[in-house]
């Protein structure tokens, strides 16, 4: 019987992946652009005004995808980091460091949109709610990752050290989340409840879903472009980079 061998590790070589990423990212970028346009159109013009929150709720179409992506990217980053530690592949570390700035950006965006949403809805820019606090801590974890990456000169060592940090972080994320949640219930009464999901109109749901996919595409496209730059920077002494840049 003939078994088909797929060379998964072919693209583990930065040189091969550079080309693959170069062919892929324009598609993701285009999808991100188109979906964001459709999603924003739905969220601004099609989705009905919310009965309780008026027009202000529309920031949800950016806020929810941003916070989802900020959490998910941390998981993916830790996944790449663990992969890199286990198989000692250079590309994994590069992927992790390419994802980190985007994740930090989404965490920041989620906090800012949350604050902008919170002011008209609860009358406060910031509430020490469990979700807000853990999102803030997630931003701190991203910043720690980026700071460690920036302060180690040897890129291989930086990748490995950051991989350990990302894995430690990912183990801690649920612990932090639950501790903040219990802290929150101990301290404040039910002044603001974010957990009660409001029943959404179908168009709102569609707008949100399309925006989520758009954010996904954007994150993938940006990570691919960034990983291409990282590859070029780290492999600049090699022949193929000289040819690739000609």
């Amino acid at each position, binding site marked *: 019987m003939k078994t088909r061998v797929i060379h998964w590790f072919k693209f583990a070589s930065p040189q091969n992946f550079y080309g693959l990423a170069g062919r892929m990212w324009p598609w993701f970028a285009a999808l991100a652009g188109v979906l964001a346009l459709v999603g924003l159109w739905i969220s601004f013009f099609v989705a009905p005004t919310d009965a309780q929150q008026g027009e202000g709720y529309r920031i949800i179409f950016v806020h929810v995808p941003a916070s989802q992506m900020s959490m998910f990217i941390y998981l993916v980053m830790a996944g790449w980091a663990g992969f890199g*530690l286990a198989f000692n592949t250079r590309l994994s570390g590069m992927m992790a460091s390419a994802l980190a700035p985007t994740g930090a950006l989404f965490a920041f965006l989620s906090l800012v949109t949350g604050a902008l949403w919170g002011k008209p809805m609860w009358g406060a820019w910031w509430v020490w709610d469990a979700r807000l606090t853990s999102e803030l*801590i997630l931003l*701190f*974890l991203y*910043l*720690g990752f980026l*700071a*460690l990456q920036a*302060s*180690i*000169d040897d890129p291989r*060592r930086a990748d*490995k*050290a950051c991989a*350990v*940090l990302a*894995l*430690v*972080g990912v*183990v*801690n994320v649920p*612990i*932090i989340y639950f*501790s*903040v949640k*219990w*802290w929150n219930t*101990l301290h404040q009464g039910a002044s603001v409840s974010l957990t009660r999901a409001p029943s959404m109109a179908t168009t709102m749901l569609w707008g949100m879903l399309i925006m989520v996919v758009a954010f996904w595409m954007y994150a993938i496209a940006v990570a691919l472009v960034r990983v291409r730059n990282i590859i070029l920077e780290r492999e600049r002494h090699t022949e193929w980079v000289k040819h690739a840049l000609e």
Partner: protein
Amino acid sequence: MRAAGWPSVFMAVVRREVAVGMKQKSEVLTPLFFFVIVASLFPLGVGPESALLLRMAPGVLWVGALLAAMLSLQRLFATDYADGSLEQFALSPAPLTLLVLAKVFAHFLLSGLPLVLIAPVLGLQFGLDARALGVLTLSLLLGTPTLSLIGGIGAALTLGVRGAGVLLSLLILPLYIPVLIFGAGAVEADAAGMGAGGHLSLLAALLMLSAFFAPLATTTALRISLE
């Protein structure tokens, strides 16, 4: 040649660390005074109303202890790294994790335990009663070893790195948050009449978890730094 038994290696490293620490008394005393000063700054900052201070005491003392325990972390592996004895230990037949455990334990003895002992005195200044002082001391006793264990990961990761001190705090402080929450929460829960048992159990659980996982992560980080 048979390698020395693990318990004796562990004890030898702990004894050495404590002896070195006792020789350089400033390393033990500086974090302690830092803790005292930070705790004294808060009443000066927020005013001397005893009700407010009583309300803030657990949080202030815990944050102070957390920062003080972090002060000495940077030197956990740095001197051994600089003079090459860390490399020697990595090459020796005893596992590196054993060294990590011993050094972390010594760090707790030298910087965590003094904080635990002085905390009740500071608690008195904030007007905590005997029961609250007991809970505070117990929570610190359960929490500070966890701080040393988690801090070891950061110390190993930032070994020989530019600006290691500030970087260490950026890496480690977010990971300290659960310990802070349950530590300060234990005193508050007790004051609120809910009993501190739950919080103390969770602190003990965090200690168990970190005692198992943190030395592994620290060892990996040390090996990366030694490459």
